[in-house]
């Protein structure tokens, strides 16, 4: 595959420490032209740290960086760009108030002879890039009005538009559906054929297996498996990442019994739910399958009182209930683990305990005052049960790995003793070990007679962990089938992309992200 045998970029013994952690410990890596290089490892093993070094965001403490065999210093991100490195960072770097086209050319705006921005080129060139990625977006759309997945696509388009020699993608697929991932793969293969070197990070190992040519695996900042050693297969990768053999990726227990505990009848909202009906059994995991923008999150929002119902009914244990807001949903025993734990889930100013008790403050309050001893005890019990890092109670949760953060969000709903839990993309961006922990947690919950509604864009996960699957299209449930009767391909076909655009714009517009806290709150409460 590779045109020649000398690496485009090479790291030699690069180390980088943050206060308290050695995030990269003498890392060596060779990035070849015309090759897709997977960079894998558990949360917090130092992948993003490496990428930040190669993108000029930070300087290494020691070691050398070689560009085409010559030692270089990458002074800053602009320097990296000039040397042909384009990066899609794990954290979003798009500007929500700018248009898609402006974001794609941000910092790199084409100008006309008068030195003014050449809007025609901006829009034409963006349209071309978007077309390459098969993204149906107008360059003039305001980026903030797009869904998380679409914003991610814009990020990718931005890197592609630079025509760089070296393209780095740090978890580009976390928020994407199967269709978008496939589209991205097609493009990456094209770029590889043209000699581009690609560094690729993802926690979705099935996808990694399909696309990468070689892998480097990190554990606690050290390289534990170098490129080109053996065949790339998922179980070997996992063994190297975790440091032990993991026999079962999807430890599914069947705890579903026949009693229906909850029923949705013909739900409708103004945000893309169009007559959704299904029932949920005791101890069941009901998967919602569908493409990005099919209205799965919106169905969750309709149940949880985030979006007002314009029609339809909710039946809890056969009795009709009214849920007008999130508080009523929580009191009725519902829980929502939101799609994006960073934006909607975590309080980064709190330690684990503050996060865990947030949804059940009345339970630890007597006459308006908190019983801090009860809080500490409850938190400690859950942290032990879920094997959350003890660090979580020593510092605020922004210092935790993604997996630990997700467990904290889930623990919140165990503390609130919810009976019906909606998990919206619960394993997004967390490593395989943490994923398995979440699956085991789902088993424990269903074993205790609780029911789960699972939304996941990872079809393997959805098929493996659900008892039944409801296929969602345009905010409507097409059919509900046993997970065993459905294959991966069936699911793709059943929720086929078609013109799923109908449901999307309204849904996306309802979730405009702004930087202002106040309008965020206002937006979310509507």
């Amino acid at each position, binding site marked *: 595959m590779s045109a020649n045998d000398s690496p485009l970029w090479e790291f030699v013994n690069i180390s980088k420490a943050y206060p308290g952690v050695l995030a990269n410990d003498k890392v060596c890596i060779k990035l070849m032209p015309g090759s897709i290089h997977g960079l894998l490892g558990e949360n917090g093993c130092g992948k993003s740290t490496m990428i930040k070094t190669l993108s000029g965001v930070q300087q290494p403490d020691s070691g050398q960086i070689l560009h085409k065999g010559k030692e270089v210093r990458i002074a800053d991100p602009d320097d990296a760009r000039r040397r042909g490195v384009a990066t899609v960072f794990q954290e979003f770097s798009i500007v929500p108030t700018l248009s898609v086209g402006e974001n794609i050319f941000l910092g790199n705006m084409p100008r006309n002879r008068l030195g003014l921005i050449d809007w025609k080129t901006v829009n034409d060139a963006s349209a071309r890039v978007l077309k390459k990625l098969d993204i149906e977006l107008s360059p003039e759309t305001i980026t903030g009005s797009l869904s998380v997945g679409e914003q991610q696509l814009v990020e990718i388009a931005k890197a592609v538009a630079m025509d760089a020699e070296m393209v780095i993608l740090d978890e580009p697929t976390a928020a994407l559906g199967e269709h978008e991932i496939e589209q991205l793969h097609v493009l990456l293969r094209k770029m590889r054929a043209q000699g581009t070197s690609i560094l690729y990070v993802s926690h979705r190992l099935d996808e990694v297996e399909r696309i990468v040519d070689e892998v480097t695996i990190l554990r606690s900042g050290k390289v534990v498996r170098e490129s080109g050693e053996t065949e790339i297969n998922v179980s070997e990768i996992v063994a190297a990442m975790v440091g032990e053999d993991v026999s079962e990726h999807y430890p599914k227990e069947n705890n579903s019994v026949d009693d229906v505990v909850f029923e949705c009848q013909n739900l409708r909202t103004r945000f893309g739910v169009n007559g959704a009906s299904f029932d949920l059994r005791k101890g069941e995991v009901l998967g919602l399958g569908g493409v990005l923008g099919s209205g799965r999150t919106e169905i969750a929002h309709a149940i949880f009182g985030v979006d007002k119902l314009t029609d339809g009914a909710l039946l809890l244990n056969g009795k009709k209930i009214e849920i007008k807001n999130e508080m009523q949903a929580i009191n009725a025993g519902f829980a929502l683990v939101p799609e994006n734990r960073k934006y909607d889930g*975590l309080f980064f100013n709190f330690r684990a305990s503050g996060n865990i008790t947030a949804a059940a403050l009345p339970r630890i309050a007597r006459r308006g005052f908190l019983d801090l001893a009860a809080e500490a005890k409850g938190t400690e019990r859950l942290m032990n049960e879920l094997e959350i890092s003890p660090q979580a*109670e020593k510092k605020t949760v922004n210092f935790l790995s993604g997996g630990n953060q997700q467990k904290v969000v889930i623990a919140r709903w165990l503390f609130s003793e919810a009976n019906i839990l909606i998990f919206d993309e619960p394993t997004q961006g967390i490593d395989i070990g943490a994923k398995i922990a979440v699956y085991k947690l789902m088993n424990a919950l269903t074993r205790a007679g609780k029911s789960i509604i699972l939304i996941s864009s990872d079809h393997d996960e959805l098929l493996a962990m659900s008892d039944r699957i409801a296929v969602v299209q345009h905010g409507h449930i097409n059919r509900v089938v046993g997970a065993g009767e459905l294959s991966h391909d069936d699911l793709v076909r059943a929720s086929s992309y078609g013109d799923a655009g109908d449901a999307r714009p309204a849904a996306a517009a309802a979730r405009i992200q702004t930087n202002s806290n106040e309008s965020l709150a206002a937006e979310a409460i509507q």
Partner: protein
Amino acid sequence: MRRVFDSQLIGPFAAMLIVALIVALTTDRFLDPGNLSNLSLQVSIVALIAIGSSIVIFAAGIDLSAGSMVALLTMIFAQMLKFAGIPIFVALPAILLVGALLGFGLGIITAYGRIPSFITTLAALIAFRGLALTFNNGSPIFSLDPALETVFYGRLFGLPLPFFYLVFFYAMAAIVMNFSKLGREIYAVGGNPAAAVLTGINVKKVQAITFAIAGFMTAVGAILMSARLNSGSPNYGQTLELQAIAAAVVGGASLAGGRGNVLATLMGAMTIVIVQNGLNLNAAPSSVQNVVLGLIILLAVGIDMWRAEISRFLSRLRGGATKSAR
């Protein structure tokens, strides 16, 4: 999870001590008992108002209305005492109620009207002073009630009364912010409003309540202002809102919300007042005082923003020192 005396207090406390030390070195009159007692009187008004400003900031809002509200409330108070013949024991709680209600109104407009608090309270900053001018043809009202002066100048166990107000209100605020459900909800709303909504916290109500608290504390400040000068005036309280916000910021509160300790605000207020006092004692003109206040705010926020760089710099200094020692 949140301890009342946590590490957030160390920085502001150290800053206050350092400033006090510097002032004490430049003038021997600083440690004079008379001056110290004067200092506690001076700090009381801004420090009490800063309780409210901080709580609003913890919930990711901002209150610019305090100074003008003080002017308005002193005028209403003066009107009640001097012209309406309302007895002082009725007028006092009435003013507290009016302050809380005005604040609550601003909170409702902000939270339910979805107008950023910067705008609502900026509008109030302008409008309240205008309203203050509608009383008594815009002239100050003097000599309200001889009993009023004891509210400010009275003493108990040899200590000035405002000292006890400070202790009382800061103790209350610390208890509410650290041990009550409301306090926790305020930090949650400030930390991540979207997450707060999804955990069933009534974000709008909590926001409105923080402004009601701010209004109440502003009323406490206004009463002390009236008592101190035994008068009401539409000119009182200019830039008081900025000093109160500065106290919170010097105390380490994050303007993005969610982080801060109300007791640190007290340290912040004292730091500012000690600096002003030091400049006074050294006969610096008031123009200089404002410049210095501006610099303090910049420095306080700067230290917070550059924390990582500073610790890296310090560790490099230390690393360099050990290397050269070898």
